[in-house]
């Protein structure tokens, strides 16, 4: 379905939970809501589902106003952070429950339940109770229940957050294909930029109840409209340094100066702020054109098979990425290298002025 939000806002008592925002979700599209905790993701989802009515604005399903309509009359399915299944029903009965309510005949229910269960790989456990499954399988059961309903709008509210790392990876990889059937409009809330990148589709970045930016996930990642948006959509957070732009160089406040590249040439001279993602600030000098920056190690954070080195540089802390697992002694001198082709230039007010060039295909490599 096409879901249209027109200037919807939500206020609870004196708290503005969601500032007015407008959004249109195309039929069959995959939409990620990205934002930190308390950004308003769940509030927005509840408005989409019809669990809450917006304080102002309108919600339209396929052009029909459903603003005040109860959730019972909406065409919606939802998956939650917690694994929500009917505790006393078997997995089979759980998945069948929405179909039974729709009054489908037995053979159809059976076929659909088995097909959906197979898709989510829980077909061997159909006769078990949810509590007899692992966390990942319980969530698969909940997702199957939501899918089988065949609703026009499927909402997933951080469905993988309560799973351990391994299961999360596994299920995330499958989700993309499962939702690629084309009919259902999917909305997926997450706090992790990485997850948004892997899932792709469109992204809407939320921060403290405001919509910062919306668009195709790759486009938003490679050209975040503001520092705020870049901060939410970078993990670890983007390094930001004050700088002065001249006609051929950009001079960071500490004296380091980077040559201009294709994307930030011909910008008006003056003060600006420069953003560098951690993966473009490396410990290894991969090429001669990379510019060295010196600092003192504050922390080596090991994440999977890479290390993020936090270093003190002047007044600010920078985060650099290093391949492999390393540990640097606290306080030791370290030299990291910035790629002048990959810097973002923001105005002093934090609006994007220039973003590095990017290709559409480049997305997966970064993720």
């Amino acid at each position, binding site marked *: 379905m096409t879901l249209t939000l027109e200037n919807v806002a939500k206020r609870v008592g004196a708290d503005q939970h969601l500032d007015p925002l407008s959004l249109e979700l195309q039929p069959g599209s995959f939409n990620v809501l990205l934002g930190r905790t308390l950004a308003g993701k769940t509030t927005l989802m509840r408005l989409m589902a019809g669990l809450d009515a917006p304080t102002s604005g309108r919600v339209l399903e396929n052009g029909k106003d459903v603003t005040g309509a109860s959730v019972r009359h909406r065409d919606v399915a939802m998956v939650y952070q917690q694994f929500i299944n009917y505790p*006393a029903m078997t997995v089979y009965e759980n998945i069948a429950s929405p179909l039974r309510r729709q009054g489908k005949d037995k053979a159809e229910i059976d076929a659909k339940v088995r097909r959906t269960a197979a898709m989510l790989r829980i077909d061997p456990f159909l006769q078990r109770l949810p509590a007899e499954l692992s966390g990942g399988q319980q969530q698969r059961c909940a997702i199957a229940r939501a899918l089988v309903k065949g609703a026009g709008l499927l909402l997933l509210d951080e469905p993988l957050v309560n799973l351990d790392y391994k299961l999360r990876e596994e299920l995330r990889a499958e989700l993309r294909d499962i939702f690629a059937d084309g009919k259902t409009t999917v909305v997926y809330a997450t706090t992790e930029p990485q997850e948004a990148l892997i899932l792709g589709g469109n992204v809407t970045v939320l921060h403290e109840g405001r919509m910062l930016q919306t668009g195709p996930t790759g486009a938003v990642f490679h050209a975040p409209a503001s520092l705020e948006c870049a901060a939410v959509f970078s993990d670890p957070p983007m390094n930001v340094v004050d700088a002065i732009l001249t006609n051929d160089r950009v001079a960071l406040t500490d004296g380091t100066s980077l040559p201009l590249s294709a994307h930030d040439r011909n910008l008006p001279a003056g003060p600006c702020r420069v953003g560098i993602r951690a993966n473009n600030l490396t410990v290894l000098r991969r090429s001669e054109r990379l510019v060295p920056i010196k600092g003192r190690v504050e922390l080596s954070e090991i994440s999977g098979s890479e290390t993020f080195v936090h270093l003190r540089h002047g007044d600010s802390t920078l985060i650099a990425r290093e391949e492999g697992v390393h540990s640097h002694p606290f306080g030791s001198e370290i030299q990291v290298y910035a790629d002048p082709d990959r810097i973002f230039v923001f105005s002093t007010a934090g609006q994007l002025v220039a973003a590095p060039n990017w290709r559409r295909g480049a997305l997966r490599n970064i993720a």
Partner: protein
Amino acid sequence: MDKVQDNRAWFLIIPVFLIVAFSAVLPLMTVVNYSVQEIFGPGQTFFVGTEWFESVLADDRLHDALVRQIIYSLAVLAIEIPFGILIALGMPGGRSARTSLTLVLLALPLLIPFNVVGTIWQIFGRGDIGLLGATFRAIGIDYNYTNNSAHAWMTVLVMDVWHWTSLVALLCYAGLQSIPPAFYQAAKIDGASKWAVFRYIQLPKMRGVLIIAVLLRFMDSFMIYTEPFVLTGGGPGNSTTFLSQYLTQMAVGQFDIGRAAAFSIIYFLIVLLFSFVFYTIITKTGEGEKK
């Protein structure tokens, strides 16, 4: 690590050994000892074998008391459990003054001692000075627990319901509060009816506390003594003479120690049997859900 041998370790278990011996083993063995003897007085005892047990098992009054007891306990469960669930479902949730007030009001009957509950209802039901009795009389019902068996029986039952339904309600309330709100949201999105929410979410989630409630109320009502004792002393006739009542009459009233001891052991075995049955049911049902 090498195994250390030190016989002084035996001293460490002496306190536990003594406490268990004096509080459980010795009294029980004393009763067993009594149950196989005819006792005329100190030093005048005769071994009678299983005679007491045979006479107790053949005792019609005991059979009546047992049947009365079982019907009473089942009636207590049949009223208090559904009633408690209903109250819990109707209670306000969240942290508000209303919630606190409801909880305090519900807890009040639980704080009142058994004999006080008996006395309250004894006075409450009197036709001359009791509000309940006088009201019945005023609307033309000849309510009198002192000479009408059914009235006495009902009064004891109502007393127990008044006293203990709160316990069931509080237990169920705790069970309901532990259900994450997301379950209700999910049910709402599924379009589930109120009955379906109760049947498929609330009831299964309350199962654990409900089993405890059933067990507590059954055991407790099976050993009821104080309320009928205060109200009518087991009467009129034998209408409210439950097992404890009958046992006390035998042991303290008639000083029939041997018979009472045999009865105690049988009573104990009955309670043990029911406990075992409940325990089995608890561990068997919902095995998959409780993990």
